[in-house]
């Protein structure tokens, strides 16, 4: 039986047109980009908007910039486009890694980076990695343009800081000059097909043998993706050692993360894995920064 998932679908071709439709329809509209999360929510009745605004025709599918100057990625760029980007493979492989492990091949073809962020899942791959990269979200809406730091964008599971009729148009990753290391550890049971039980992303810019800049972002261990500030404090400015990475893992697991029991794992298991995942992400990032893999 054909069961339509909404009453009407709009296909704007400009961002302004999309904002106008969203403004007119108010709460009774949902944006669709890749659809791999939204359609499931529609089918399961989690949300029941009368109107769907399909933004796939907006000119937001692009990957621009460089590591020296920063990257701009359009919101409807798919995980497939990111996973196959020669530029990103060379200059920001951690994002390619997040894209490859986002889901199965069929999901990767459709899922977009903007959708992964706006779905506001605390487990989302791109969000987890982008949080460690100090990413900025570019937003357009009826009251004009604005920016938000990704780490401040989330209010809770499924809840973003977007106001009525606003659209995320671009993801901006600031410049990462010089030597750096970045690593994403996603712990799952069915590899690509599973949502992360724990995700840990680390970015390190070394200062000789010391940890210069460090960011550790955690997924699936809180109501939103979060920055592990206690882990950062342990690492920042210190001479690197594997014991230091171990301490950072311990701090992240004990002080930064919070845990729930759910269908994917118990809280106790998540805590053990967080400690290991953070340690591994930090070790891998340091190794890359020092010219390793």
């Amino acid at each position, binding site marked *: 039986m054909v*069961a339509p998932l909404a009453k009407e*679908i709009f*296909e704007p071709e400009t961002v302004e047109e999309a904002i106008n439709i969203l403004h007119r329809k108010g709460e009774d509209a949902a944006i669709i980009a890749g659809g*791999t999360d939204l*359609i*499931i929510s529609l089918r399961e009745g989690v949300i029941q908007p009368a109107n769907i605004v399909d933004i796939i025709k907006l000119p937001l599918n692009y990957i621009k910039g460089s590591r020296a100057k920063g990257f701009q990625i359009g919101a409807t760029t798919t995980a497939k486009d990111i996973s196959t980007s020669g530029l990103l493979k060379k200059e920001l492989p951690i994002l390619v890694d997040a894209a490859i492990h986002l889901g199965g091949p069929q999901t990767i*073809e459709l899922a977009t980076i903007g959708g992964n962020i706006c779905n506001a899942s605390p487990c989302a791959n791109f969000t987890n990695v982008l949080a460690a990269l100090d990413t900025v979200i570019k937003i357009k809406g009826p009251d004009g343009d604005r920016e938000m730091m990704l780490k401040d964008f989330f209010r809770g599971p499924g809840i973003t800081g977007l106001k009525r009729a606003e659209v995320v148009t671009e993801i901006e990753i600031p410049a990462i000059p010089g030597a750096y290391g970045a690593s994403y550890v996603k712990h799952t049971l069915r590899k690509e097909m599973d949502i992360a039980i724990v995700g840990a992303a680390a970015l390190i810019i070394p200062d000789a043998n010391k940890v210069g800049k460090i960011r550790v972002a955690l997924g699936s261990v809180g109501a939103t993706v979060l920055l592990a500030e206690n882990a950062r404090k342990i690492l920042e400015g210190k001479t690197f050692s594997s014991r230091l990475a171990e301490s950072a893992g311990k701090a992240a697991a004990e002080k930064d993360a919070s845990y729930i029991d759910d269908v994917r794992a118990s809280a106790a298991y998540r805590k053990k894995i967080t400690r290991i995942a953070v340690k591994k992400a930090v070790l891998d990032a340091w190794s890359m920064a020092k010219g390793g893999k």
Partner: protein
Amino acid sequence: MKRDIKCTINGRQRTFYADPCASVLDVLRDVLHLMGTKEGCGTGDCGACTIIWNGKAVNSCLLLANRMENAEIWTIEGLMKDGELHPIQQAFIEAGATQCGFCNPGFIMRIKAMLEENPDPTDEEITQGLVGNICRCTGYKAIRDAVKIAVKKQRR
């Protein structure tokens, strides 16, 4: 609200009256009566509903019918040519990669797209390429064997 949708399905231009807010899977099966594409989970986990849409293997349960407009779509029904099975279909028979058969159309469409992108995949690439499809009968070995047989057939 229903409207006329125009696209190419299995090499043939089609215009049909359907709801753009329905899933492509529902439209294929219930409007166009192309029953080869199966619904497994309905949440993008099992791959049984995989079709090729504009050259990409996608789950048709997670695509709305508005995206059919002007698209080029291939389903399992489009693979046979002049009464001959497609080499991937033939390879499934030869490898014994089918038991209940429910997952086969999805696997075969995914394999078709995979081999178009990468005509000579390694064992690891075959395994990775099929992570989005579930088979509850064969244990996957026969399916991987079928991919290797299909690679040889297509090289000829």
